[in-house]
């Protein structure tokens, strides 16, 4: 039996050339920052897209300056056509879900901090790691290329429902070359994610330092680990689905195209496929993907909140158990996205049950977080505020999930803004709040400088109020029957709702503008922020046992030995009120 292998890449010292150091780097810390940079670029594009859509929804006749430059066909004179609205919506969803919510909390922070938190020098396969970033980057470039082809990006939504996505240009604008680029980009993205998932799992299992048993791993590490397992299985289904879609589009097969389909007055030369098959494959990936987006943020909040509550996280084992339960259940509920798809209504009931069951671990997690804060002497720093904000938006978004899990209610609400409000709160905003918390929390470690707290608090409060102004009214819009994916509201019953849309648009523009505070803080603190100590927040986990920023091999040649769990806050009788994981101090429990 051989010894377990470990990366020895650092034995030759850090690379010196610019390209090896900053572009094709094997260092997990650089790769983490690269992922973060890519997510930042993607979120800016995604947010601009949402602004364009919101402006058009509130004032459909307004020409948007410069939009005709992006697409003369899609926005003649700057006023977008209904089809171009759908193109922008597709790109907003795709970019945000794949390149922001999957990349930022998981790939970016996971890459940077998972090896450090377990006391490793690097990931198990640094070369794979570099490849997964550059694969993901390639996917992003291919996706963005869809903006510049003749009839623009696809109009089929981020879910690319067949037959719209499978047929080609007869089905509408953007469904020729744009949809090809979409499918190719997502297939490439799957490969990058699978490589990353393999690497994360092998690293977590094999590269833990002495004393870092599984039960002593920080909750963020646990969340990244569980997320990697979910990714490994979920992207393995999306990859063949995308390849079959590409075959349908280019090789004349008809996996997802039924017989006798007439589009643009032309009988399509396909027969025998099933449109529901695509939905089954897509959502078998798509629902776990939702947890790929949210679980890392849950883990990050579980990791950060006790630091500022100065109390151990309530129910540490239950927390980890709930994460695993959510990961497991995420594979049993995909059909709840398909209640109105024409699927057998009996199977809708079948999918409704596990969906309601999944609320149990989610609720336990939330209650444990609230219980952790209860009676705590909170230190209200910016990362702490974003953690509390996370709990708030996670609850707000989660509660509407109870309604949507029931087929009878979902039938009415599914195609409305109620669903838009639900998933933006529970998946998008919650996950992004986790990313904000992580950024403010770990920035000192990553760059050796503190971020500005005053700007951070302004950023939190304005964003927090902003997202509620944007998404809360959408619940009411949905219940009033306001359908989603419409580019303008001209029906009688919808005209009365336009003032609400105007309010949401103004809130969206303002909340987006507030993010400039964050961007400014990020750049300014990078160069001008006060120098950060090694452990500015008095945390216990291993990343606080090394310098800020960590040296090339993370611990400067030291081999860390772990004696404690990550949860030793508010310890009575200890030298401080906390005990580092590397401290061999005995903890006396009364």
């Amino acid at each position, binding site marked *: 039996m051989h010894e377990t292998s470990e990366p020895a*890449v650092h034995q030759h010292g850090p690379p010196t050339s610019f390209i090896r150091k900053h572009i094709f780097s094997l260092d997990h810390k650089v790769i983490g920052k690269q992922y973060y940079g890519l997510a930042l670029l993607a979120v800016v594009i995604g947010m601009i897209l949402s602004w364009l859509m919101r402006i058009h929804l509130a004032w459909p006749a307004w020409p948007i300056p410069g939009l005709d430059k992006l697409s003369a066909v899609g926005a003649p004179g700057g006023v977008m056509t209904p089809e171009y609205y759908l193109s922008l919506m597709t790109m907003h969803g795709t970019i945000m879900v794949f390149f922001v919510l999957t990349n930022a909390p998981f790939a970016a922070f996971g890459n940077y901090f998972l090896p450090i938190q377990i006391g490793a020098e690097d990931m198990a396969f640094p070369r794979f790691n570099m490849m997964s970033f550059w694969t993901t980057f390639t996917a992003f470039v291919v996706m963005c290329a869809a903006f510049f082809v003749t009839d623009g990006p696809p109009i089929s939504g981020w879910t690319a429902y067949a037959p719209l996505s499978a047929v080609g240009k007869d089905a509408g604008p953007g469904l020729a070359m744009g949809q090809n680029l979409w499918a190719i980009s997502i297939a490439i993205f799957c490969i990058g994610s699978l490589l990353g998932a393999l690497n994360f799992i092998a690293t977590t299992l094999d590269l*833990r330092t*002495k004393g870092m048993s599984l039960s002593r791993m920080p909750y963020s590490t646990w969340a990244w680990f569980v997320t990697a397992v979910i990714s490994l299985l979920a992207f393995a289904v999306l990859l*063949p689905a995308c390849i079959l879609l590409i075959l349908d589009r280019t090789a004349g097969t008809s996996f997802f195209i039924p017989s006798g389909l007439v589009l643009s007055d032309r009988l399509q030369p396909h027969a025998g496929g099933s449109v529901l098959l695509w939905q089954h494959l897509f959502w078998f990936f798509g629902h776990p993907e939702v947890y790929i987006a949210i679980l890392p943020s849950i883990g990050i909040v579980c990791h950060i909140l006790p630091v500022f509550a100065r109390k151990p996280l309530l129910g540490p084992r239950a927390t980890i158990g709930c994460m695993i339960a959510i990961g497991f259940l995420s594979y049993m509920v995909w059909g709840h996205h398909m209640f109105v798809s024409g699927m057998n209504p009996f199977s809708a009931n079948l999918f409704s049950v596990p969906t309601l069951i999944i609320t149990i671990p989610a609720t336990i997690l939330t209650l444990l977080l609230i219980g952790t804060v209860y009676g705590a002497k909170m230190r209200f720093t910016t990362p702490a505020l974003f953690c509390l904000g996370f709990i708030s938006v996670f609850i707000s978004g989660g509660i509407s999930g109870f309604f949507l899990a029931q087929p009878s209610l979902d039938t009415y609400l599914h195609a409305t803004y109620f669903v838009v409000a639900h998933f933006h709160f529970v998946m998008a905003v919650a996950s992004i709040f986790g990313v904000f918390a992580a950024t403010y929390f770990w920035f000192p470690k990553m760059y050796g400088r503190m971020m500005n707290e005053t700007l951070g608090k302004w950023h939190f409060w304005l964003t927090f109020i902003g997202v509620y102004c944007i998404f809360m009214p959408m619940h009411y819009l949905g219940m009033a029957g306001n359908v989603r994916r419409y580019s303008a509201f001209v029906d009688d019953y919808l005209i009365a709702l336009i003032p609400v849309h105007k309010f949401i648009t103004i809130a969206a523009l303002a909340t987006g503008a507030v993010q400039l505070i964050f961007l400014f803080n990020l750049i300014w603190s990078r160069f001008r922020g006060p120098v950060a100590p090694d452990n500015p927040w008095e945390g216990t986990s291993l990343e606080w046992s090394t310098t800020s920023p960590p040296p090339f091999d993370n611990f400067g040649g030291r081999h860390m030995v772990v004696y404690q769990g990550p949860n030793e806050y508010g310890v009575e009788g200890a030298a401080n009120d906390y005990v580092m994981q590397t401290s061999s101090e005995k903890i006396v429990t009364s």
Partner: protein
Amino acid sequence: MSESEMALSAGQSGHAAFMEPSPYGIQSKKLTMWLFIISDAVTFGAMLMVFSYLRAGTPNWNAPFHFSPSIINGMVMTFVLLTSSLTMLGAVEAAKAGRKAASLKWLGGTVLLGTLFAVLHLREWFHMFDEGWRLFQNPTGGPVIFGAAFFSITGLHLMHVISGIIALIVIAIGYSTDWLDSNHVETTGLYWHFVDLVWMFVFPLVYLMNAAR
């Protein structure tokens, strides 16, 4: 520095004393191969699901494979692939025991049997092309989706076989020049057995259940 060199130098560096033992007590690379196999099994599972879904949803599904030559050919292919798993086992055992020359011979045998499988498979494909089968065409007048389902699922498997043959050749060359070690042979063996195992699902579902009566 290649991944393999890293593993070699890690073996010599003695870092393991400062690490938690791996829960499975195997090399990271071998663990990763197992993880890849799990992921790939899900991919094949999705494809088999697609095949079954389309079959169940198509009322006039046809069964074009006659016992001779299609099913016989498939049985020979199955026999060849199963035998190649046996020779792979020989290669792994010999490599573990340090009998390099024997291991290389077994690897050569595995490559030959794998190639024979691929040739038999391609010969069958070309035979079907001649009959008029295409991804979007069914010469028997049955559902056209049959061609798409058949060629995509067997194509995915054939792609795995061909990748496996290439991997075996690379590993054999690396092993003979001491660039790679017996662990690489074993890890590649895991993959090869998996490809074999998948065929045990593909063959009944795609061939036997579509045998002409």
